């Protein structure tokens, strides 16, 4: 779990298109080179180069970005059209069995038979992973405790809530004590409280259990919270791979919120323009890019503008990048991200 040092290294290392976010030494869990998968004319993965280390790695992308295809290839269930991959030092095309022994997989879709209890089903699946029956029983009791399925573990799974089903699905992925788990959209369909629980659990698996985690989501904000690293896929291509902290650096932009009668935000924008500051409305807020060399005097300018516009100043806040921003490069306020990306490339 050497998350700290590696995150540190990420900042100084440039990301190149061919060798993105190089993870060092024995810590590499997954590495792909030129990995491509085509279905007829559809390109699901387009010469993907990525390496993933320990801890929690978020795999972000819209639906159809190639997340599930990548997981299936890594499990050795799909043959790549070209390129290569290594999972825990094994080649998925020839050593799929060895990989599937050491990897746990939680699918995105429903995969639980309704007429069996979680306990019985997971004992069976533990045996299918090679555990002898008694060990399978012990491990099942253990992981069900860790994912927080209590008495309901003895009831048929057909009666489970979505949250309980997701926990059972997670438990089966962990029962054989894998070295890597791939969790495909584990928070799908969960209410906010259950979502938080699941994310906490994902983080615990990566950090306390010592199991490398690859977790996918199309809800990007989630991954900010639990991932040490984020890989962004878009249309089967690597958009960006980096430490999570890189995504959230201070952009230098200031966000301003004002209150007052009749269109306070518009009046504030006008007053700012009069003072020589261009602003861009963002929801209820105004975003301004302080010109270089202005320094802290910008706050005085904003305060005076608020006085001139006769609006109440609620807050001035430094803007941070969020992972979403990578997807919204056309948004003017995010030109900085684009600059950073092209610098990286």
């Amino acid at each position, binding site marked *: *779990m050497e998350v700290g040092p590696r995150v540190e290294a990420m900042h100084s290392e440039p990301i190149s298109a061919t060798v993105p976010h190089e993870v060092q030494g024995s810590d590499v869990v997954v590495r792909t080179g030129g990995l491509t998968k085509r279905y007829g004319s559809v390109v699901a993965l387009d010469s993907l180069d990525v390496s993933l280390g320990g801890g929690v790695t978020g795999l972000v992308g819209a639906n159809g970005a190639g997340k599930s295809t990548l997981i299936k290839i890594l499990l050795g*269930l799909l043959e790549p059209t070209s390129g290569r991959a290594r999972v825990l030092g094994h080649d998925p095309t020839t050593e799929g*069995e060895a990989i599937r022994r050491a990897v746990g997989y939680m699918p995105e879709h429903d*995969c*639980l*038979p309704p007429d069996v209890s979680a306990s019985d089903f997971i004992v069976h699946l533990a045996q*299918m992973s*090679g555990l002898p029956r008694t060990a399978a029983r012990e491990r099942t009791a*253990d992981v069900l405790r860790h994912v927080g399925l209590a008495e309901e573990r003895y009831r048929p799974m057909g009666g489970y809530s979505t949250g309980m089903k997701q926990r059972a699905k997670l438990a089966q992925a962990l029962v054989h004590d894998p070295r890597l788990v791939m969790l495909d959209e584990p928070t799908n369909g969960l209410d906010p409280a259950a979502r938080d629980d699941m994310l906490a659990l994902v983080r615990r698996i990566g950090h*306390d259990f010592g199991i490398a985690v690859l977790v996918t989501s199309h809800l990007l904000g989630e991954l900010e919270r639990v991932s040490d690293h984020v890989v962004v896929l878009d249309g089967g291509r690597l958009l960006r791979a980096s430490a999570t902290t890189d995504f959230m650096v201070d952009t230098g932009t200031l966000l301003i919120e004002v209150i007052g009668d009749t269109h306070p935000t518009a009046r504030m924008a006008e007053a700012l323009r009069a003072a020589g500051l261009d602003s861009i409305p963002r929801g209820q807020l105004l975003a301004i890019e302080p010109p270089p060399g202005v320094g802290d005097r910008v706050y005085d300018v904003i305060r005076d503008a608020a006085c001139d516009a006769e609006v109440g100043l609620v807050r001035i806040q430094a803007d941070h990048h969020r992972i979403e921003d990578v997807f919204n490069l056309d948004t003017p306020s995010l030109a900085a991200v684009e600059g950073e990306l092209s610098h990286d490339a």
Partner: protein
Amino acid sequence: MTPESRSGVIHDLGYRPYAGIRQAEGRIALALFVTGLRNAFGLGRSGKSKLLPFILLGLNLLPALILVAVMVFTNLDELPIGYAAYAGQTQMLLSVFAAAQAPILFSRDLRHGSIVLYLARPLRSATYALMRWCSLTVALLIFLVTPIVVLLLGALLSEADVVDQLTEAGWAVLAAVLLAGMLASVTGVISAWSTRRGFGVVASIAVLLFGYGMIAAVQAIAYDEASDRVGEYAGLLAPYSLYRGIAAGVLDSSIDAITPPSGAPMQALYVAVALLVVLGGIGLLVWRYRRAAAR
């Protein structure tokens, strides 16, 4: 916090890594086979899923018990029904059993998506399909062989010739293996393609029973018209007519086949077609689950 001190905390949190035995593919396959066999009889599943298989098993055994009782009390020294013929008489029960239990082994994992959880584990999709087929075949074999054993015990109690009886029962078991394999292949393939349970059951019964009904009708007409060859070729088209043909023509068991295969080439053809049904079914099942893996 350094990584070292952090990993010290990990153990306090109670996650225990597993350092024990991880079994080879053969043992995993065996575990899948045993679970499948138990599931075919409703064992390890809900209480009411045991009802149908055990009622059918009981009904299937009942005539044999009655026959043996009659034999013992009336001092018959010969079985009123042949070992191989028994399955012909109870083929209705056998068909319902095969049709109802095949979807449990072949449709459930596809319908509920749990096949993905198997395929993400060490077993290859082909091994999975083969083990499922073995589970159903052995379940059907248990269904077919228990009455044979009861009849054999009855015959031995009535002081029938031991060698004769053992030989005939042995041939009947061999024919039963072939029938069980054919039924498992046919119902397995139907179930693996019709993941809606009701449809699989109905389609299996239709193919097995009505299929045989039609073949039997054709054979009867051919027999009346004294063109037995037509009936013999028609018999190649249904598992039950193949079974009867092989039992009567090849194994010389006492079973009523309307137009049993006559002549070595035709008999060989019957055996070859029966084996083709068995192996072809396995091949299709392997292909079906391999496709499921790539989806």
